[in-house]
């Protein structure tokens, strides 16, 4: 009797896991196919430079002496009109030379208005909450301290806000340290698929893009209307995406607003980063799904897409549960084997490897980006798949344990930086393109640069 029950439960689990993963596989294949098929992706590049509202750039920093000068120099070199630009580097209790570097820039450039935090709750969301109270821009642009924006990125990020329905915009992050380790090489594939593939595809199809908290912008009025940043959230960016969506605001994706980032080079750092994302994301799922389903602002397909996005980390435990059930069936002599279920499970699971990016999406993104060599790394992504599956399951186990037993979860964790200190802001040629010509308020004509 017990064995029959076990066999029955195992079949139900496998069947459910296959159905669940199949839905995700269909979604990913559809997104990949549609990205390849659309001739003119949705963008507002033709209007870049014609919409210049007042902008505040927020850069949370905690012990960022290695990278602080690079981002500040990059922002000084930006082609955005200085009269409409305010930069707030948020020094959150740094114990290194971060404050000294920021103050040095602030003395030279009056639009850099530092905020030195000495008290209050720590972490990026809390720092953003405090900085937003001082910000004077209509649009708030966010960068993490290790990011180096190109000269035109701010203009590109603000252009979608000419559409009154846009509450946030998201640019694209491109890993710089692709050869730093095998992991960073594999993560570059994942990022490529996630931005060039999935984000652009979802935006083309009329779904809201996901705000990533860096290389992104948010309309100050929209932020205020949803009650500002959620300082309790581990992923304040995902939280904001769905808070905005529930109020009818959309997030636009700007594929051309590219910015270098540094991806984790070691599995330990990656595991902690992933753990934070999984916890924050799943927290948003539980907080928002009832309201999302009831929302009068969203169409049926938008609701389905939002649910898929929020529940994406469930694919990992579903797969593991399916594997366990398959093994049980294999070792129970009474079980009548139906091999297609475990085979389907293995196939679908493998399709969803990495951080939910499929073969097709990575292939499509590599093709569009022209990075063919990197796509040859795909087979090695199997390692990433197993590591991710383990890290995601572990993070979800902790999340639900804490949820049930009410114990405290993981705190905010800052991703470890490996970039060497240049100190002069010259990373990635940041200072090389500085305009020699007098800065024009329109900046639409060709200006002489040192490179010319």
């Amino acid at each position, binding site marked *: 009797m017990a064995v029959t029950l076990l066999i029955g439960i195992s079949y139900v689990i496998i069947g459910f896991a296959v159905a669940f993963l199949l839905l995700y596989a269909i979604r990913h294949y559809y997104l990949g196919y549609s990205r390849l098929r659309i001739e003119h992706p949705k963008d507002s*590049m*033709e*209007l870049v*430079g*014609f*919409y*210049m509202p007042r902008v505040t750039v927020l850069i949370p920093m905690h012990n960022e002496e290695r990278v602080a000068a690079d981002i500040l120099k*990059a922002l000084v070199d930006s*082609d955005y009109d200085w009269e409409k630009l305010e930069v707030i580097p948020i020094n959150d209790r740094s114990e290194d030379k971060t404050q000294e570097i920021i103050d040095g820039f602030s003395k030279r450039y009056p639009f850099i208005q530092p905020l030195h935090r000495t008290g209050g709750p720590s972490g990026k969301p809390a720092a953003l909450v405090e900085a937003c109270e001082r910000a004077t821009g209509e649009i708030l642009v966010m960068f993490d301290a290790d990011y180096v924006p*190109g*000269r*035109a990125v701010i*203009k*590109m990020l603000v252009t979608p806000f*000419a*559409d*009154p*329905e846009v509450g946030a915009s998201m640019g694209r992050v*491109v*890993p*710089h*340290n*692709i*050869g730093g380790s*095998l992991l960073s*090489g594999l993560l570059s594939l994942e990022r490529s698929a996630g931005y060039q593939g999935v984000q652009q595809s979802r935006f083309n199809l009329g779904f809201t893009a996901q705000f990533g908290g860096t290389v992104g912008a948010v*309309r100050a*009025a*929209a932020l*205020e*209307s949803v009650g500002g940043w959620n300082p309790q959230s581990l992923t304040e960016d995902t939280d904001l995406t769905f808070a905005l969506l529930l*109020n*009818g*605001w959309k997030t636009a994706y700007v594929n051309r607003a*590219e*910015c*270098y980032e540094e991806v984790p080079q070691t599995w330990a750092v990656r595991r902690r980063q992933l753990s934070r994302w999984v916890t924050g994301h799943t927290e948003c799922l539980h907080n928002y799904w009832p309201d999302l389903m009831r929302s*009068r*602002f969203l169409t049926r397909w938008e609701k389905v897409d939002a649910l898929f996005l929020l529940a994406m980390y469930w694919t990992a435990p579903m797969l593991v549960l399916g594997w366990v059930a398959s093994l049980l069936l294999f070792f129970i002599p009474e079980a009548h084997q139906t091999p297609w279920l475990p085979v389907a499970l293995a196939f679908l699971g493998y399709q969803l490897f990495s951080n939910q990016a499929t073969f097709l999406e990575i292939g499509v993104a590599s093709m569009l980006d022209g*990075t063919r*060599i*990197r796509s*040859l*790394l795909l*087979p*090695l992504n199997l390692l990433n798949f197993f590591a991710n599956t383990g890290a995601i399951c572990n993070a979800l186990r902790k999340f639900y344990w804490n949820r049930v037993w009410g114990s405290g979860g993981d705190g905010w964790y800052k991703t470890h930086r490996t970039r060497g200190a240049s100190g002069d802001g010259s990373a*990635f*040629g*940041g200072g*090389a*393109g500085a305009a020699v010509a007098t800065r024009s*308020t*329109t*900046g*639409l*004509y*060709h*200006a002489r*640069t040192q*490179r010319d």
Partner: protein
Amino acid sequence: MAFLLFSLFFCAVFYLHFSMAHRAWRKIKGRESAELDMGYVRMEDYFGQSFRAKLAVWIKTLPRATNSSTGLRVFDKGNERIFVAGGAQYPAGRKEREILVIEGDFACGRDCDFEKEVMVKGNCAIGPDTQMQALAVDGTLHLGQGSRVRRWADAVKHLTVGQDTVVASRVTSRTSIEFLPGAQALSLFAPEVFTEGRHENELQIEVAPASVAQLPHLDKDAKAMHGYDPAKLFSMGGNTFLYNGDLHLTAPLHLRAPFVVRGNFSCPKESLLEADVKAYGSIAIGAASVVKGNLTAGRDIILKPNTYFQGLLHAGAAMRLSRGVRGLRDKLPVAAYAAGVMTVESNVVVNGKLASAQRVVAVSTPVAWLEGARA
């Protein structure tokens, strides 16, 4: 035996799978990405300026050809040659296969064919039905009727795109562009872009508004009037409002807050839109209206005669700028972009940019349209 062969085949495929990946990894190892151009800045006249800059370098660095004769300097550039002359006038039907640099004025007759780029430092007049590759001019440029430019045209002074002329890519000028009926281009950018008849009297519409619809009108108990149903209005917060359905107003509109319409939107003549509007469907703005905000439409945008706009127009499909439309504002130029065809009627003046993913076409205003607008 079959099993052994299959095993061998499987192992070979498995090995290849990972050996190729390993080889790729060895190529990447230790490298940093150089995908992004950190100094990239979007410039509307990029093609013209970039060509000028390259040409200056080529003339300075390339070897001078031995067959250079008096009055004509020739430079070898791989398989191509660059001809540099002081000034020139080409007869009708002349074909030119080399890059041409004219240091004075230049003119060509009807039906010429220039296979490579042309750079003119003086003024330039291109004869009718001429085929060009691309054109950078430091003076004025006149593209004759029916001529065809396969790529871009750029001038520092006034640029005329003649009747039925087609420019496959961008047209830019630092002074002004006149875009005559039948002309087509992918985009036009200048401090002033105008179509024929810009100096004629503007259409006069003297109808005093009988009543004005003030939006947003948040009184939910108010009765539906002027085509507007208060029950369909929702606040998104941040002083932005959403209207769930089509909105076709029958009284002139005074819009004071950003507005999103989940359907088609139209307002009658002499409306005043002080904030941004988005419609999931089409937007039609009545004659003699003033649009101070930006307009975004999922489908078409139509600005009826004599409408002023002061921001951005973004249409997901076609766009029509009717006779007498003006686009201008302080400090920044305006811009209009359509994913479909953009049709520009007579007497339209835009200080900024007109662009389309398909083509911008200038048309003569049909008489029927004018009569409709007057009525």
